């Protein structure tokens, strides 16, 4: 069974643009990182300016484009890092 939505944590400029530290994305049966990237841009147009540059992490590790997703994972989305 597929949950109806997945929660995505946001950071830095993505968080500020969305006005929230978490967004909810409508889920589909077979989700991948590449799908999520498109879904975020469609469902949150305010993030569209960043969409090609957003990094996606699944369970605290950077994820590749074809990696499958499910609603039980911790999913985060953020622009390139700049600490130090």
């Amino acid at each position, binding site marked *: 069974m597929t949950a109806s939505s997945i929660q995505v944590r946001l950071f830095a400029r993505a968080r*500020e643009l969305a006005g929230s530290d978490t967004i909810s994305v409508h889920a589909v049966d077979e989700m991948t990182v590449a799908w999520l990237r498109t879904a975020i841009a469609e469902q949150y147009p305010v993030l569209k300016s960043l969409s090609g*540059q957003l990094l996606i*992490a699944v369970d605290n*590790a950077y994820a590749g484009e074809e990696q499958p997703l499910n609603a039980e994972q911790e999913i*985060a989305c953020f*622009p390139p890092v700049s*600490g*130090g």
Partner: protein
Amino acid sequence: MPDSIAIVEESIDYAALTEQVRSNACGAVVLFMGTVREMTHGKQTVALDYEAYPEMAYKTMQQLIDEARAQWEVHSIGIEHRVGHLTLGEISVAIAVSSAHRSEAFEAGRFLIDRLKEIVPIWKKENWSDGTTEWEHPGISAE
């Protein structure tokens, strides 16, 4: 002495971090301190705001320590990064590395700060002297 990783909101005690990696087995201790700088490409900074994704940042910092240990014979590594609002001259990150001989500590320290800036999910926002703010996201230009 085990390695240590910390993300903190208060001032970094770099002396304590440095002392923590010292050992009689080590002839070398190297400390790197990232410090809030006033001028960047002709623009004046008054403060920086740092934000972290802590759970993932701890994990990726541990990954960097593992990568450094795979390449160099180091004794101990301590990494401490500050988050929140930092004003000029304050220390944003400190990395202390000890080793028997100096080259390993220098090389591992350089590697750790360079890789930290590439993969550890921590971000900084400039507070410029003209009152504007700007996230620093490499590869993304300001709108």
